């Protein structure tokens, strides 16, 4: 039997949601019938709006999908202006202030505290500047991800940017693919380093060569069924198909139509295509695609480039895109570290100015929550590096700063078990100040995800942290499960979960002890990932003990029970929500 969500989608979904959304926005929050809240909030996701968690009713997270993370000249300023004017909540965040932008692990942008009444003005401004929230959430083609420097990368074999653009233009707003059983995440990679992260996407295009009529051609191998959520991580699997770039959209149409027709609409927990690949196997997946969903003969897979994948592969070659790198045209791109992907709005304005001044005005978002300023004139790189803003968003950051990723967490998200972003900021600073990394370790990835949805991609980090609870002195406290040794590359590996339910204030001590053991016991030149891989479960558990240190954690209490974890009066009953378009409470707070 189809789920309730499917029934709501059957009634109304896709493009036509917009008209209703605009009507509600004109009339105000109260115009949404109370007995239709859940149905409408589910539908609003398709237009990039996610109702914030309990205690924050009437406020939305807004996601702007920027394909391949590309923000064209001028767009970053527009995002800053929208955040500044519309993304301010009742209480400031103590680290990031009253308005801020989040760069996500899928190269999108998230703003919080958006009021329904402001949506028409925001959409008008976004669309006047070729930006959109369409399909940023919900059950359809999501933001296309890829190598963030596609078209500007010396390691590139195919410029993946036009392919990503074509997919974006073909499948955004396309009624034939607007109502899928679940989200549909796509990665396009054109370089030989693997930085598109195709292994963790539903559909992946990976560079490959194929001999056609005696000539070697460049195109893509197709992989299907990757994803990290729900304690059921899967790497995408090859379905033995190669496509030339001009057929990429046709295969994308076929695969997503296959998912539309055969994906599980009776059980949302089983709906992602990774489960269909599990059930069918890759051979059947290919056969059904060929027989029912494409009208040309599929080529068998070509010669891939996976053996040269260095991105997040555990070595020191290419952990991210931070730093100064020459483009093929002689200009430079400068990757800046944004700790946990969040920038205060004043800094976003300033960066937009710097991008205009030193580069083309374009910036790009990475899957490590960082931002890249492209097209910097070679003569002005040194001058750019002297800019004071780069003291905060460094192109040469400490490994603990550059390696930190965190999801949204209980600050706004219904799913999360624990506070994440501000905690990870504190972790990174404490580790930087107190822990020496073993010699030669330049990249060390610590990803903190508040729950099993895995938005911070914890399973592909050196140290994976996932939200949990435990008791300390009898009291419930926020805790984290700790996994070790995950990463991508030629032989991707999900982290092994080693220490469970570690109180959050003891995690930095664990990492300190872990790294001391690594330094003492590693063989010469051995990477952390190799060090973990050669140990069995028992040895891994003996690597380090969790312990309290000088690190202090102000979020040990159940932050989910608060209406906002950083409010002075944080009880659920103190929430001003729901509010009207001016932010004034619509109903008196509970006694």
């Amino acid at each position: 039997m189809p789920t309730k969500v499917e029934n709501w989608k059957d009634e109304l979904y896709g493009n036509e949601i917009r008209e209703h959304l605009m009507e509600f926005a004109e009339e105000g929050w109260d115009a949404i019938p109370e007995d239709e809240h859940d149905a409408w909030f589910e539908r609003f996701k398709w237009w990039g709006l996610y109702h914030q968690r309990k205690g924050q009713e009437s406020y939305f997270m807004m996601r702007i999908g920027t394909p391949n993370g590309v923000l064209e000249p001028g767009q970053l300023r527009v995002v800053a202006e929208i955040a500044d004017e519309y993304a301010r909540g009742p209480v400031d965040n103590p680290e990031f202030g009253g308005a801020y932008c989040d760069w996500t692990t899928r190269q999108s942008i998230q703003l919080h505290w958006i009021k329904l009444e402001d949506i028409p003005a925001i959409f008008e401004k976004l669309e006047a500047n070729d930006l959109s929230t369409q399909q940023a959430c919900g059950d359809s083609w999501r933001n296309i991800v890829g190598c963030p420097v596609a078209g500007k990368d010396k390691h590139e074999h195919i410029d993946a940017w036009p392919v990503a653009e074509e997919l974006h233009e073909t499948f955004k707003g396309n009624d034939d693919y607007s109502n899928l059983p679940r989200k549909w995440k796509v990665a396009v990679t054109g370089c030989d380093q693997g930085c598109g992260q195709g292994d963790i996407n539903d559909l992946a295009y990976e560079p490959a060569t194929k001999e056609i009529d005696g000539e070697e051609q460049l195109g893509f191998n197709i992989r299907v069924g990757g994803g990290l959520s729900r304690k059921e991580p899967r790497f995408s699997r090859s379905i033995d198909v190669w496509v030339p770039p001009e057929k990429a959209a046709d295969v994308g149409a076929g695969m997503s139509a296959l998912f539309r027709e055969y994906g599980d609409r009776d059980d949302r927990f089983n709906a992602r295509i990774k489960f269909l690949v599990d059930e069918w196997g890759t051979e059947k997946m290919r056969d059904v695609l060929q027989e029912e969903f494409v009208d040309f003969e599929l080529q068998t897979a070509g010669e891939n480039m996976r053996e040269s994948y260095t991105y997040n592969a555990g070595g020191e070659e290419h952990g991210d895109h931070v730093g100064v790198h020459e483009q093929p045209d002689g200009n430079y791109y400068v990757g800046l570290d944004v700790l946990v992907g969040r920038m205060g709005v004043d800094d976003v304005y300033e960066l937009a100015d710097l991008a205009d001044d030193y580069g083309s005005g374009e910036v790009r978002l990475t899957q490590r929550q960082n931002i890249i300023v492209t097209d910097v004139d070679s003569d002005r790189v040194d001058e750019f590096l002297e800019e004071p803003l780069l003291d905060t968003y460094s192109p040469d950051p400490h490994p603990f700063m550059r390696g930190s990723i965190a999801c949204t967490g209980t600050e706004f998200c219904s799913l999360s078990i624990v506070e994440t972003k501000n905690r990870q900021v504190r972790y990174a600073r404490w580790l930087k100040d107190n822990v020496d990394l073993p010699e030669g370790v330049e990249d060390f990835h610590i990803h903190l995800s508040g729950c099993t949805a895995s938005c911070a991609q914890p399973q592909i980090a050196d140290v994976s942290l996932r939200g949990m609870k435990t008791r300390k002195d009898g009291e419930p406290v926020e805790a984290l499960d700790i996994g070790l040794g995950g990463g991508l590359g030629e032989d991707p590996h999900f982290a092994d979960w080693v220490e469970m339910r570690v109180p959050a204030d003891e995690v930095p001590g664990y990492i300190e002890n872990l790294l001391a053991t690594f330094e003492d016991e590693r063989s010469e030149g051995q990477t952390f990932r190799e060090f973990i891989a050669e140990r069995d479960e028992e040895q891994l558990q003996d690597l380090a003990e969790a312990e309290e240190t000088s690190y202090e954690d102000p979020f040990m209490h159940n932050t989910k029970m608060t209406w906002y974890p950083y409010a002075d009066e944080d009880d659920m009953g103190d929430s001003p929500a729901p509010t009207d378009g001016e932010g004034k409470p619509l109903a008196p707070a509970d006694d």
Partner: protein
Amino acid sequence: MTTDVHQLDDGAWISVNDERRINVSDLWLLARHDVCDCELADFLVEGFAEVGVDHPDVQARIAGRCITCGTEGVTGWITVGRVIDPETGEFWPVETTSVHIPDRRRRLARPK
């Protein structure tokens, strides 16, 4: 009025009459349960796998983990609240810090 009950956002919460009433992330004490061998499981609620109504109770099968022994699992049906006034749909959630017994009636009906 009819009572509308469902779980949303990957089972992150239970909605009763379009209002978010029960959330993930709390610890629930479970007795006479099948999750693990602990007499009293200290169970972290990570998701609501199924929801249903056994009038007037709203029930759920809950996915999570006992934080005492570490066992993961999905509980039997647990009452998570009750519609105390079917006319208005007024709903009272259970006190999450009390002790909960999955599938209680069937078990109590069975002699020890």
